[in-house]
C-alpha cells in the first residue's frame, strides 16, 4: 500500500512539472469548451425551430435541451479521449525504461503490482482533473435550465466517461510498458484504441455470433447507454474487466522486463 502511494506521488509530481501534462489538459479544455458552446447554440436553435413548428402545427414534443447537450457532448468526449489518453500514458513506463529509473523501482522493496497501480491511479487522477472543469459547466446548466434534466443522468454520463477513460488508460499503460520509446507506445495504444472503435462499425451490418462478439468487444459501444443516463451493470462489468485485464497485462509485462532484458 505504501508503495502504491510512493509511486503515485512521484507520478503526480512528474505530471505537474512536465509541460506535456499542462498542454494536454489545456488542449482538452479548449476543445471541450468549444464543443460545449457549439452544441448549446445548435441545440437551442433547433429547439426554437421546434417550438415554432409546434405553435404552427400543434402537438410535437417538448425539446429537452439539457439532456441533448449532455448526450452529444459526452459523445464528443469519448472521441477526444481516444486521442488524448495515449498521450497521457505514453511515457509512463517507456521513459523509465529508457532512463534506467526502472532499475531503481524494480530493485526497491515495492511489488510490481504497487508500481503498476500507483502509476495507473496517477493517470486516472489526471483524467479526473481534466474532467472537473466540464462538470462545473454542466452543474451551472442544470441549475439554470428550464426544464432541467435529472442530476442522475449527469452522474451516469460522468461514470461512463470515467470508466471508458480508465479502460483506455489501462490499455495505454500496457503499451507503454512494452517499449522504451514513447512514440512507439503512443502509436501502439492509438492503433489499438482505433481498432476497438471500428470493431463497432463492422458489426452493425452482420448479426452472426462473430459479429455480436466483435460488437461486445467494442469499448465505445458500452459507453452509449451511459450517455443516455442508463447505468447498465453489464456495461460497468465490461469496463471493470477491461481495466482489470489491462492492469494485469501491465504487471506481467513489468515482471517480464526482468526476463526480457536477457
Amino acid at each position, binding site marked *: 500500500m505504501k508503495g502504491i502511494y510512493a509511486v503515485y506521488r512521484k507520478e503526480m*509530481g512528474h505530471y505537474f512539472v512536465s509541460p506535456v501534462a499542462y498542454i494536454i489538459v489545456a488542449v482538452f479544455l479548449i476543445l471541450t469548451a468549444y464543443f460545449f458552446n457549439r452544441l448549446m447554440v445548435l441545440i437551442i436553435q433547433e429547439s426554437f425551430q421546434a417550438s415554432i413548428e409546434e405553435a404552427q402545427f400543434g402537438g410535437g414534443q417538448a425539446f429537452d435541451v439539457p439532456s441533448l447537450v449532455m448526450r452529444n457532448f459526452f459523445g464528443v468526449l469519448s472521441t477526444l479521449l481516444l486521442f488524448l489518453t495515449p498521450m497521457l500514458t505514453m511515457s509512463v513506463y517507456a521513459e523509465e525504461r529508457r532512463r534506467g529509473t526502472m532499475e531503481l523501482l524494480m530493485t526497491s522493496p515495492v511489488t510490481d503490482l504497487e508500481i503498476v497501480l500507483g502509476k495507473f491511479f496517477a493517470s486516472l487522477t489526471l483524467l479526473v482533473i481534466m474532467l472537473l472543469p466540464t462538470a462545473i459547466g454542466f452543474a451551472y446548466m442544470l441549475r439554470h435550465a428550464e426544464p432541467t434534466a435529472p442530476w442522475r443522468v449527469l452522474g451516469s454520463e460522468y461514470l461512463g466517461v470515467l470508466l471508458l477513460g480508465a479502460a483506455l488508460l489501462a490499455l495505454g499503460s500496457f503499451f507503454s510498458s512494452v517499449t522504451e520509446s514513447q512514440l512507439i507506445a503512443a502509436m501502439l495504444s492509438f492503433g489499438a484504441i482505433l481498432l476497438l472503435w471500428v470493431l463497432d462499425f463492422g458489426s452493425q451490418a452482420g448479426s452472426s455470433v462473430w459479429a455480436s462478439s466483435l460488437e461486445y468487444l467494442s469499448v465505445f459501444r458500452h459507453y452509449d447507454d451511459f450517455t443516455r443516463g442508463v447505468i447498465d451493470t453489464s456495461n460497468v462489468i465490461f469496463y471493470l474487466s477491461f481495466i482489470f485485464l489491462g492492469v494485469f497485462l501491465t504487471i506481467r509485462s513489468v515482471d517480464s522486463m526482468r526476463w526480457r532484458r536477457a
Partner: protein
Amino acid sequence: MIEVKDLTKRFAEQTAVDHVSFVVNKGEILGFLGPNGAGKTTTMRILTGFLPATSGSAQVAGFDVFNDSLEVRKRIGYLPENPPLYLDMTVTAYLEFVARIKNVPAEKRAALVEDALAKTNIVDKRHELIKRLSRGYKQRVGLAQALVHDPEIIILDEPTAGLDPKQIIEVRHLIKGLAGSHTIILSTHILPEVSMTCDRVVIINRGRIAAIDTPANLTTQLKGGQNVRLEVGADQNAVCAAIRELPGVRKVSGEPAGGNGRVVVTVEASPGQDVRSQIASKVVGKGWPLYELRGVSLSLEEIFLELTTEDSASPN
C-alpha cells in the same frame, strides 16, 4: 552476508556470468575488478533482483535473491551503472522519494535525507533540479540514493565513475567509513581503488573468476617470483653481469641513477625464489657500495593484466 554459488547468466549470444562463486562477510568491502564486459554489472543486477540468474544461487542476508526478492530488496542500497535519476526532480525531492519507496518511516525520512546529502557532499545542490547538475554531481546523487535508507548491504556499480580526483578520494573515504556497519560490494576498473578501499578483491574476466583474495595477498602471492631493486655505486655492466650469474635470477636490467656514478638495477627472480640475500653478499663481496636493496611486489595492475590476459589467451 552474501553468498553466491555457481551463479551463471546466459544471454542469447553469450554467457555473461559463468559459474561464479564467492562469499562476502558481514562488514566487509568486496571489490569487483574486471575489464569491460567481464560480467560485473550482470552479477550485481542478479544480486539486486533486477535480473534472474540462469542457474546457480545467490543469497543475500540469508534470503534467496530470486525466491525472496522482496526481502533482499528491503536490505540493499544499489547504485546501478547509470544512476537512476528523475531529471525533473530536485535533489531533495528525489532522495525523499527514494526513502519513501525504500520503506523509511515518515518521521525518519528528513533526517536520513540530510545525512545522505551531507555524506555525498551535495548539501549546496539540494534545491537544484537534477537535470541541471553536472555529471559528477549526478553520480553523487546516485550514490546518495543508494545510502539514503541506511541499508545493511550496499551494492555500488562503479561508484567513482565521473568524479573529480578530490571527490574520488572523498567517496573512497566514505565507503571505507561505511564498512563494518555495512556490507559492501563495489565494482571498478580503477585498480588503486581496489587496493585502497577493499578488504578482498574478486578479479573477474569473461564471466569467470580469475582470482579472489585480499589485495595484499594478490600482490605478493599470486605472482611467484619477486622483483628486487638495488642501487649500487659501481659500473652498470659489471653489476649486471655479476648478478646474472646468481642462481634463481631470471632477468636483470640496469640504468644509471642520475649522474652520481651509481646504477639502479632491477632483478626479476624465478617464481618462489628469494634472491635478496645472495645479491647482497655478492655486491658486498665485490666491494661495491650498496645504497639500497628492496623487494618490489607487482602492482595490482600488473596482476590484473597478467590474470586477464592469460585467461583470454587460453582457449575455451
